[in-house]
């Protein structure tokens, strides 16, 4: 959460180091003004979203029908034990007291105690988080590194209605690839590379090569969708007047495509791309379960099945913050690429 805040708070300073800052190109006060407003607005939205998220995760345990502690400990547990546990969790306090305690706990890094293992939830999360973050980060990277060049190339090849066949082949295959859900792809990959060929490890994080299949499962679908969006945007942008201007400046083709068309195509693609990349955070849950990955995704599922609600609560919160972080980052990148996107929201 603190990282999310600082990412936004640092934005007003970024334009001076922006890629197009010419020498001596002092910022106009109007632009600075827009950056400040953008940062304030974005920060406010982030704070509201975090508040909604925190409140929802707090309410989760109270929305469950019946007594969650009884549910977790089973019908055979002695009544005194259940009562004692309820007492320890503070479940008998008035709701607002519990809410206040929850918020205070979060602020001090206290995420509660597991109903099953009695371990602090914060420790469980800390132990499991790195595996998930590294997996998700690699998958983002893979998806973007594949999607951008592919989308740009396809856009150039199919602009102005050229390459009809290439377009059809690309669109069809990307639609099909995007439809394959990550966990099914994972199962298929396990079967081919693990069972049939025996080339790659299929369970657990047992070394760098163990990342290959999970990352692939996560990245293929989003990469296909992103590439498709980027292609459509490139085709549109290549028709734009400013691309004609760039050609009238007699720049070499790569400069026209990469320097002038791509940033504009990306700004449009990123608006949807943010949602897609955000969704990848949640997709790790399924993929981790296919590959027995020692991350948060395996833990949340076993905790749901065990009714270990404090752990579930905390992990939902972590995922939610992860998604918000991705969204915020995408918005900031968007604003850097296309300063109009800040103003458009005004």
């Amino acid at each position, binding site marked *: 959460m603190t990282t999310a805040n600082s990412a936004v708070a640092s934005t007003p300073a970024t334009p001076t180091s922006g890629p197009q800052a010419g020498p001596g190109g002092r910022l*106009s006060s109007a632009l600075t003004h827009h950056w400040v407003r953008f940062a304030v607005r974005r920060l406010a939205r982030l704070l509201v979203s975090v508040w909604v998220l925190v409140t929802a995760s707090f309410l989760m345990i109270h929305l469950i029908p019946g007594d969650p502690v009884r549910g977790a400990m089973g019908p055979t547990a002695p009544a005194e034990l259940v009562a004692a546990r309820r007492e320890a969790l503070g479940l008998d306090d008035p709701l607002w007291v519990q809410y206040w305690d929850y918020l205070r706990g979060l602020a001090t890094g206290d995420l509660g105690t597991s109903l099953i293992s009695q371990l602090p939830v914060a420790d469980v999360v800390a132990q499991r988080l790195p595996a998930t973050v590294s997996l998700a980060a690699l998958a983002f990277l893979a998806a973007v590194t594949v999607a951008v060049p592919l989308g740009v190339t396809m856009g150039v090849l199919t602009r102005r209605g050229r390459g009809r066949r290439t377009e059809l082949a690309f669109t069809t295959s990307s639609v099909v690839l995007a439809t394959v859900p990550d966990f099914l792809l994972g199962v298929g990959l396990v079967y081919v590379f693990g069972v049939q060929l025996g080339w790659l490890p299929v369970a657990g994080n047992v070394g760098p090569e163990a990342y290959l299949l999970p990352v692939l499962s996560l990245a293929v679908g989003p990469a296909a969708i992103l590439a*498709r969006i980027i292609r*459509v945007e490139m085709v549109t942008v290549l028709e734009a007047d400013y691309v004609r201007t760039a050609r009238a400046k007699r720049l*070499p083709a790569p400069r026209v495509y990469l320097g*002038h068309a791509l940033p504009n195509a990306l700004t449009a693609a990123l608006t949807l791309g943010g949602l897609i990349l955000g969704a990848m955070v949640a997709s790790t849950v399924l993929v981790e379960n296919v590959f027995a990955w020692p991350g948060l995704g395996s833990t949340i599922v076993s905790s749901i099945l065990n009714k270990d609600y404090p752990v579930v609560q905390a992990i939902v919160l972590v995922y939610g913050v992860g998604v918000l972080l991705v969204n915020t980052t995408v918005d900031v990148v968007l604003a850097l690429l296309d300063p109009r996107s800040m103003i458009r929201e005004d």
Partner: protein
Amino acid sequence: MAAQRTRQPTRRWRQVVRTPLGAGASLLMALVLLLALVAPMLWTDQADAVDTGNILAGPSAEHWAGTDNLGRDILFRSLVAARLSVGLALTATAIAIVLGLLLGTAPMLLGRRLGRLVTASVDIAVAFPGLLLALFFAVIFGVGARGAVLAIGIAGAPSFARLVHTLVAGVAARDYVAAARAAGVGRVRVLLRHVLPNISEPLIVNATIGAGGALLSFAGLSFLGLGVQAPQYDWGRLLFDGIGALYVNPAAALAPGLTVLLAGLAFNLFGESVAKGLGVATLGHLPERRSAGPATSGPPTIRAEEPVVAGDDEAPVLDVRDLWVSFPGADGPVQPVRGVSFAVRRGEAVGVVGESGSGKSLTALAVSRLIEEPGRVEAARLQLLGADLRTGSERAQRQLLGTSLAMVFQDPMTSFNPTRRMGGQLAEVARQHQGMTRRDAFGRAVDRLAAVRIPEARRRAGQYPHEFSGGMRQRAMIGMGLMGSPALIIADEPTTALDVTVQQQVLDLLQAIREADDVALVLISHDVTVVGEVCDRVLVMYAGRIVEDLAAADLATGAAHPYTRALVAAVPDMETDLEQPLAVVPGRPVAPGEVPAGCAYAARCPLADDRCRAEDPQLASFETPDHRVACWHAGEPIPVDGPREPAPVDPVELVEVDAP
């Protein structure tokens, strides 16, 4: 789009099925639904038959996909699971749609404040991935099929709500809704009678795609063990059971996996192809925007060289002979420019006038080598400063064009890259063609901006295009052309998109540059007045040809071609009643694909006779060598009340001649 809307709904749907993809998707979809309907009736017994002597067996003739840990047939189980899987997915989708409709129409029904709150909440919820929401609600509603249906349904609601909200907002702005509201029809009634029927199509399409998503999400939850519980089974549950035995009998996981994949694909592809066929935008996908068709054109026949105005001894800056531009059309190539020849001398200002579609802008683009595939340019001669633009290495051409030719386009609002600072966009030219360093190029950019009278040029160079006014942008565009040392500026309707008050500034600037550096100017405009004011010579274009080439001073009284005279006559003067609509040249311009035999202007010409309709007049000298006209009756008096050709057909197509 408009044409599609008017087509019969059934016919439009039939057309969807007619595409190969649409037909395949529809077939697959029908198969999945049929399977869901009949599979449990046919094969429940085989699917449930326990065979303990044959557990976890691999595929065999008896069990095509092997057996599970109780010896039950995997294939039959995968088929029978269709009903529960599809049923649960459809139920979840129905929940998502109902909730989405409620939330999405709430802003319209609840009034401002509450509506805003709902919209804001939906916006926050949409940012979270569906799977995360589904997990959250699965915890609340408990593990099992019922909990999972509710969880997936609710998780899908926000994105539907947003879709509905967008669609409703679009329809609500239309006239008939406003009219109904004004007539006192209640909000709910307006919603049910006028709004919902109009958004049903995109809604159904997106619901279909949503059902595919729900199907796969459900498989995901069941696969995690959070969805359907034994002894019930859906595809996800079968996968959950099968993956444990992946090494023993891979088919146990692959069979249900493939089935769910095919089913998901069926819903998705069906939805997408319907969306494409109906031109409906889907969640997360952009409609395709496309332009011209593929390149299939052959080269146009090259005509014999036409006489060009004899200039002085100095080589012309621009020398064009028999220029043709063609584009592939539905019925063979279309030729919007048909054999244009002219030359521009150093420092000379040549105006090109004509209605839209006359080929004047394409002539400019062709001359500056900016026509892209599938368009084709052919010319007997095309020289800039004596260098042939038709041949030569690309590098050398880029260098020459990049430094000696400046382009100014019509719309300064869209002609700059919105994502880059102005200074950088100008500096790029010097960096590219003059090998300047970043710093030097930027310095030159600031200098050029100052030269085109942009105040505080240094500060302005650090700004983005949207921070410039239209007039300033057009001046900056001219400044960009001055980064090199242009011998020729081609300006295509440089003032049309500008305010009347700044038009003159831009024209004055062009004049000043021309005088200061002896730069030639080709000014393309539909406005005879502007051209007459700025230029030395005027080329009048009609249907892809030059029909008259005359000195600008002769425009008012010396024009010989009936079309030129009509253009001049349409210019309002002191006596024109400004309350009246502006005068126009009667009749409709010829479309590039439909050029008639004989004179292209014959249908609109008051002097047209049989010869005009049969023989095409060529551009030839008239009275003086510098005055060229293509008309059989050049200079003949035009009958005042003579037999005018049919009245204007479509006023939109007509050119209005603006007041200066």
